[in-house]
């Protein structure tokens, strides 16, 4: 199988994809499931050695990603840039990301509306921002900096949270909207995170979705979460280790009606099931989208073309 040569221009089709996980590398390459695209966590593929483009090698995961890249459109989803941190942006991390983007030429690049480090100490987690004017100004400036460095627009994803700060003055959905408009970034709407936060903090999930501008959403995430009882109360944790729940499927239906044919993907990170389970979830998302929207076959066509390149 010849896999060399310049990657063709790639767009993410408006149908469902899945998260690319190391456990499924061989399975995906061998069985080539009928999914629209895959999303890779950027940091898992940072092992590119010296940042010289002459060096065409990469880590073992990177070599897999390169092969998958020739079968499916790829989106790069970062979890460690700590966009909302008050530390200076980590230039090495940015460089690694840029280098990876140059090599993979992904259809979309995304990060989170969160922070994960302060005083150079990293928590490797998606920690919630307070929703204040100061925080908004800061996020706008940081996203501008990232987009300028990368030379492209990024998508920013709303995260699940287990607390609210007393200083917050702006509802989360308004914060997301303002941020995308002022920073010129797109929104990666995680419908599961909307649901988790609505339940954890007592707001209306539908209202959240209905207040996000239609044109700003360029991708949707779907995932499973965990319901946990603590001190007699119930809290929902964004664990990515379950099937998507019915309430989130309902919200997805609403999102499709509002945002139209937008690429969606199934996130599953812990207690990974067999690839088939993820593919079935993606197919379910496709079926919902198709039932809500009369014609949307373009995605399938893009993916067929992707296949023929290899044959």
């Amino acid at each position, binding site marked *: 199988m010849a896999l060399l040569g310049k990657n063709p221009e790639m767009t993410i089709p408006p149908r469902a994809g899945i998260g690319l996980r190391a456990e499924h590398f061989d399975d995906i390459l061998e069985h080539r499931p009928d999914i629209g695209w895959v999303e890779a966590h950027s*940091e*898992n593929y*940072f*092992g*590119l*050695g*010296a940042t010289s483009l002459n*060096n065409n*090698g*990469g*880590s*073992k*995961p*990177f070599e897999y990603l390169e092969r998958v890249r020739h079968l499916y459109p790829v989106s790069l989803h970062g*979890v*460690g*840039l*700590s966009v909302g*941190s*008050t530390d200076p942006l*980590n230039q090495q*991390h940015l460089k*690694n990301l840029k280098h990876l983007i140059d090599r993979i030429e992904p259809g979309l690049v995304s990060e989170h509306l969160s*922070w*994960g*480090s*302060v*005083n*150079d*100490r*990293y*928590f*490797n*987690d998606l*920690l919630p921002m*307070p929703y*204040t004017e*100061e*925080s908004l100004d*800061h996020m706008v400036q940081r996203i501008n900096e990232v987009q300028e460095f990368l030379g492209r627009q990024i998508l920013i994803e709303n995260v699940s949270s*287990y*607390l*609210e*700060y*007393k*200083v917050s003055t702006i509802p989360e959905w308004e914060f997301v909207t303002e941020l995308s408009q002022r920073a010129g970034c797109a929104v990666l709407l995680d419908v599961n995170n909307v649901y988790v936060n609505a339940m954890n*903090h*007592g707001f209306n999930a539908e209202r959240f979705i209905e207040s996000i501008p239609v044109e700003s959403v360029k991708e949707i995430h779907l995932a499973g979460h965990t319901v946990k009882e*603590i*001190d007699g*109360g119930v*809290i929902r*944790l964004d664990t990515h280790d379950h099937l998507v729940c019915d309430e989130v499927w309902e919200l997805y239906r609403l999102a499709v009606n509002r945002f139209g044919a937008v690429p969606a993907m199934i996130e599953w990170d812990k207690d990974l099931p067999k690839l088939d389970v993820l593919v079935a979830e993606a197919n379910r998302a496709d079926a919902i989208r198709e039932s809500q929207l009369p014609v949307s076959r373009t995605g399938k066509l893009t993916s067929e073309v992707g296949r023929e390149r290899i044959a």
Partner: protein
Amino acid sequence: MNALRELQQGFARSVNGDTDEVYAQTVCDAGLSGARRLGIYQHGVAIGFRDALGGVFEVIKKLVGDDYFAHVAESYIQTHPSTSGNVHDFGENFPEYLETFQGLETLPYLPDVARLEWAYHSAFHSPMGEMLNISKLAQVPESQQNQLTLLLSPACYLLRSNFPVLRIWQVNQDDYEGDELVDLEEGGVELAIVREGKQIAFHSLSPGAFAMLEAISFGETFNVSCEAALNIDPDCDVGEILQDAVMNRIVGGFSVKGKA
């Protein structure tokens, strides 16, 4: 940005485990107290790092048991916070940490087993690099040979241990079948751990070969590296060592006066 920075610093203190009652007051306590809510993050962060360490140091986890591993990991996370947004960078100092950890004195081979696991992890996340071009190497004029420096492949790691750590690692792999007893007296190892395509290969090296490759890894010139080998073993064949090292992708490049 002062308020935001203070908020993040306070959050960081809480996640580090110092219950900060004053800070907890800045978090809404609808149904669940601010402190409990911060505790969810504290727990999540700790589990994240523990699992990351456990994923890299699987054999160590097997050797000391899940509970004890969690105990060591928790202590390591406190003293060696992550400094990278890439979780795969986390754990580099874990082998040294095991050396001084109270309670592990009876398992003196653990740090070297951990070094082997870190090398395996690092090789996995490194590019293989190119195969060294022997004919190009042969073209280096004699007048420049004393400036010739060989380079290890980016995915090659050297490890010397007084313990049979490769055997320990092997018998603790999930798919291992065979004699599970390891004789700690069977002697040490001198290894090159290298990525070869999909596999990570372990090459056992002779004392001369290890000395030569170690000198190369320190940036010594080819001549000095050969001397290092001959000092350890006057009868070793440095040409053969080099050839094997190139074949096995241990040595992957060279430079003359800093020129590749």
